[in-house]
């Protein structure tokens, strides 16, 4: 055997001695190729390997196309659901109780500037009591006004076993009117408030091209249903929301505190009657004055809570604009444009939210894929180097 002397000899020797596959192997491989590389039975394979194979075979373009289709369908479904729920909310004309207490947070400021068409019957302040005059009994005073209130399903407050609840109610009603009818509708609102013995807290009426009106009202809870019916009869109802809030817990707490305070005042009065020295009487009187101020504060808080249950806050908004019935009930091209714009807006919103969710996940997946690919390449290079 001659050893190869130069590159040419070596190349020839390498080509002559290159590894040759066995005939058995080539026959077997030929058969598999002819059969199109039949897969193993899918039953015997786990789902993960099937998915992996499918992803391996599918190109990135196909995956992108399929993913885009799924996202598109998801957006369409979400839009349909959203539009459906939105329409239901807008067209409901009564009985829909939303847990939205839009006015409960602003009740304190609203009460600071009332414009009563008729003075409220409850919640007026009480004069500070003197030595022998007894503090007004909360239960006995509150009972008559509450008994007339349908909004508060309540009787005397008790420490335990309270059978009734103090419910604050609020409502919002939106009316659609022609600009020329805004003044008449506003007058009708005032009339309805008067009929319901309610209070106008704030009102704004605008005439002209952007005509409209806003009313913040206090309506006796017992009259709320009738008042809302009267408001609804004024013009076309666009929106109507009602909300309730249970304020039983704060009412009970303050009632108990007031009762304790009264008990302390009674005790101090007894001590004052038994006091023998001037100094002792001064100390007790000072403490008595403090306790009475505290009791008055509690009384005021309780009055406000009672007013919240006795009176419901109602917001009436009169708006002008294109009515759905202006064209005689016929659905026209402008309505179609409006609806299309509405749906497109919702679809854009849903898409934006979807992107906000998907984009970070896609970014993480992309980074993970790149890291995995880099790691595989590094491992292959290392394997080749070590081979």
């Amino acid at each position, binding site marked *: 055997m001659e050893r190869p002397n130069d590159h040419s000899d*070596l190349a020839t*020797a390498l080509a002559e*001695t290159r590894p040759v*596959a*066995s005939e058995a192997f080539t026959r077997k491989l030929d058969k598999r*190729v002819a059969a199109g590389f039949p897969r193993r039975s899918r039953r015997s394979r786990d789902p993960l390997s099937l998915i992996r*194979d499918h992803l391996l*075979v599918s190109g990135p373009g196909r995956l992108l196309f399929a993913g885009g289709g799924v996202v598109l369908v998801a957006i369409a479904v979400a839009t349909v659901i959203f539009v459906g729920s939105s329409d239901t909310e807008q067209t409901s004309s009564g009985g829909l109780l939303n847990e939205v207490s839009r006015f409960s947070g602003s009740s304190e400021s609203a009460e600071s500037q009332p414009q009563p068409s008729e003075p409220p019957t409850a919640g007026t302040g009480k004069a500070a009591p003197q030595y022998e005059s007894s503090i007004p009994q909360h239960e006995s005073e509150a009972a008559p006004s509450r008994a007339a209130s349908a909004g508060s399903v309540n009787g005397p407050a008790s420490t335990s076993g309270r059978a009734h609840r103090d419910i604050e109610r609020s409502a919002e009603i939106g009316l659609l009117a022609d600009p020329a009818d805004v003044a008449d509708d506003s007058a009708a609102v005032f009339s309805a408030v008067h009929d319901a013995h309610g209070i106008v807290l704030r009102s704004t009426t605008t005439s002209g091209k952007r005509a409209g009106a806003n009313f913040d009202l206090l309506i006796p809870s017992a009259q709320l249903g009738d008042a809302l019916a009267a408001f609804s009869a004024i013009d076309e109802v666009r929106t109507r929301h009602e909300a309730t809030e249970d304020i039983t817990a704060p009412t009970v707490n303050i009632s108990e505190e007031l009762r304790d305070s009264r008990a302390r005042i009674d005790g101090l009065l007894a001590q004052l009657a038994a006091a023998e020295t001037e100094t002792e009487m001064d100390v007790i009187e000072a403490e008595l004055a403090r306790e009475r101020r505290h009791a008055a504060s509690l009384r005021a808080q309780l009055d406000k809570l009672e007013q919240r249950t006795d009176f419901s806050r109602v917001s009436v908004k009169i708006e002008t604009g294109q009515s759905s019935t202006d064209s005689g009930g016929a659905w026209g091209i402008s309505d179609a444009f409006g609806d299309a714009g509405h749906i497109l807006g919702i679809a854009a919103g849903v898409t934006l939210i979807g992107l906000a969710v998907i984009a970070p996940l896609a970014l993480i997946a992309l980074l993970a894929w790149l890291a995995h690919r880099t790691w595989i390449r590094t491992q*292959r290079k290392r394997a080749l180097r070590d081979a």
Partner: protein
Amino acid sequence: MSEAAIADPAAQSRSEVDFERLYRSSRDDVYAYAAGLLRDQAAAEDVTAAAFERAYRKRSRFDANRGSARAWLFGIARNAALDELRRRGRQAELSTDPVDAASVPAPDRDRDELRLLLDTALARLEGPERELVALKFFAGLSNGEIADVVGISASNVGTRLNRTMDKLREACDGAP
């Protein structure tokens, strides 16, 4: 099978003919490359079969603008071979497999000695060097095709091959 192939029987036929032609022209070369790199007959058979199966499944993704079909096929085969090396996690040892009698046309003492000499010399090369030799002389790829497969320039392939051949010749001279 691609959608175009399903819709158009002629396209399907062309697709199969292309793969068939690629298989017929490259089967022995892919095996020789895998065996030269792995120095393990069974592993080389597994890698060859896996490479053609992967190529068959991914044939619709072949892009002629990115290189020749052979270079694409050998890229797949190379990944399969390197994955096999990773799986083994050990340095490939000098082949101790019994020589397949069917693969040897006729008894030839000189050729057997030459084969043993080259095997010994190849074992002294590093993995990337042995891969270049396998791609060039066992698989018969051009420098340009090797460049596509390995991911370096064709001139770099030539330089490295030259250096590897020097090293291989020295290894042959130093062999007992």
